[in-house]
């Protein structure tokens, strides 16, 4: 959809919109997937997003932070207040200073930020050599958006025989340059879903991408709903003003 939108914009802006920065190293364009939230009426599939949160919580969050999210935000993927309280309470998060002035930890509240796996990017870098990117906006922050992230999660394989893989790198077909620091995160069966949904690599990737897409754009559903009303109003208004203009000008030769 992003690509379609870009082309619409390109046409509108007389072609100067083809401003997609080229990638330094060749990587195939990620194949397009069907996503429930794309299109003018698309919404998030909440069951997918909830499973995706479970994948994030059990797998991704070992290394990746999501610093723009609070546990309360999970109401947006349909979790109940009790579920959110339970999820928040299961983690220990920093809670300011105690009355001696020492940093204090405590159980999370719905208002707490998502617990980050590392105290700061430097600590992450020290532990993993490369600091893993924060995932709050990852779908907006990569060319190709959800298709790209999905392709990366599914794109791990053994390197071709003539490919020289650097120490500590992993081969990924869709990563620019093919050498990614992240080891393959999903292998299938990493998570067992309560609803019995399939947990193959591609199913898990699909669910976690849905969750990440929601996380990057949590107001999308409301945005489109308001958008339809605004568009409808302006179409009617344009029609009315056109009728008024015709009437006003009817007595003038022009």
């Amino acid at each position: 959809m992003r690509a379609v939108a870009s082309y619409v914009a390109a046409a509108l802006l007389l072609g100067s919109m083809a401003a997609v920065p080229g990638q330094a190293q060749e990587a195939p364009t990620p194949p397009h997937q069907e996503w429930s939230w794309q299109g003018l009426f698309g919404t998030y599939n909440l069951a997918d997003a909830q499973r995706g949160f479970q994948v994030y919580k059990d797998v991704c969050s070992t290394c990746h932070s999501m610093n723009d999210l609070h546990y309360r935000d999970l109401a947006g993927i349909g979790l109940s207040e009790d579920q959110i309280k339970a999820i928040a309470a299961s983690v220990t998060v920093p809670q300011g200073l105690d009355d001696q002035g020492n940093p204090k930890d405590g159980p999370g509240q719905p208002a707490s930020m998502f617990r980050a796996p590392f105290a700061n990017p430097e600590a992450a870098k020290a532990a993993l050599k490369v600091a893993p990117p924060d995932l709050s906006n990852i779908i907006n922050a990569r060319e190709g958006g959800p298709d790209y992230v999905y392709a990366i999660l599914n794109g791990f394989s053994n390197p071709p025989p003539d490919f020289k893989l650097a120490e500590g790198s992993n081969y990924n077909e869709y990563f620019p340059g093919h050498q990614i620091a992240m080891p393959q995160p999903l292998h299938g069966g990493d998570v067992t879903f309560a609803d019995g949904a399939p947990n193959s690599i591609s199913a898990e990737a699909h669910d976690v991408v849905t969750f990440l897409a929601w996380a990057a754009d949590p107001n999308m559903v409301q945005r489109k709903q308001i958008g339809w009303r605004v568009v409808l109003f302006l179409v009617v208004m344009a029609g009315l003003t056109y009728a008024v203009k015709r009437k006003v000008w009817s007595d003038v030769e022009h």
Partner: protein
Amino acid sequence: MAGQLHDSDFKNPVVQWIDTRLPIFTMMQKEYMVFPTPKNFNYFWNFGAMAVVTLVIMIVTGILLAMNYQPNTELAFDSVQHIMRDVNYGWMLRYIHQNGASMFFIVTYIHIFRGLYYGSYKKPRELLWMIGVLILLLMMATAFMGYVLPWGQMSYWGATVITNLFSAFPVVGHGIVTWLWGGFSVANPTLNRFFALHYLLPFVLVAVVGLHVAALHVTGSNNPLGIDVKSPQDTVPFHPYYTAKDSIGLCVFLLVWAIFVFFYPHALSDPNNSIPANPLQTPDDIVPEWYFLPFYAILRSIPNKLAGVCLMFGSILVLFVLPWLDTSPVRSARFRPIYRKVIFVLVLAVVGLGICGAHKPEGIWVPLSRICAVYYYLHFLVILPLLGKLERPLPLPESISKAVLRRGGGPLPQAATAKPMEKA
């Protein structure tokens, strides 16, 4: 005259009391209600009003965003995320403002094309035009600094590249850059001052737009025929005729804007700007927003940095002297058979530059952007001065009303249904 009250025609006692002491109602009546306006405008004359409305919307949304934004390199990116996620309808304010910048430039570029096509810059409207070019420059400065505020990767690196341009100037260059940055790299002082200026300049714009409109109301509007108003039969009062016509264009324009805001909010933005600024990691290719691409292409097409910077700024500065470069006394392109063609070649060159600017300066894009850049300057510096002497203009109509009557009541029915630009 001292001690006398202004003579007011208003009947309402409150309005009259004010108007006799401060005749703003008389002024509004004169300038926006009965103001005699040529009756043959086409829809190209909607774009000035659209630009004013856009400026107002940008200021209102901008002030609301500023209430929640933190101009500090440690906080800026997260404060924008806070606006998008936690502030009530913050996402809407931000998307309106972010896409509004693009809308502002689309409208302004079309408005400028209108001026070029119908010769609106010619005597007696030279100063009106020059104030317009000043508005364009102010807009560009405002947009550039606004783009830095979210403090994403493109914000940071765009700011670095553009401010670094000043280092091309000999002797003073590096001093200027350090002075702009408030330090030795783009950093917190830079962001902080860009925020201050991004808040200030729109109000300067309001003042300069005021001058633009004031100058317009001295000379009166140009029109698609480019001939002067000769009698009251040539005009209609601004209200209700053009308030009604402007409203149509405005609704359509807001519709386009709304489609971007509510359905394709990211279509015009670079994914790199969703990554927080990182001075240690340069993006693959540093590209400005689409509305700067033609100028960026001129810059990158020249191998010498100083020459590139001069030609880039020169491409706008040349517009200041356009009224004197164009030697033809005929305003409207409708009556200039050759100009009418070359103006579209110019548009093609500018669009070509825009496309070149979106690509890395390698391969075909280098010669292509050079050809377009050369043509751009050729148009203004060679073609226009010569064309006025060489071109044989078509006969001009006697008056606007004569031309309108001939078109409306004449024996050629297809002329009445033709599109405005084909009606010469």
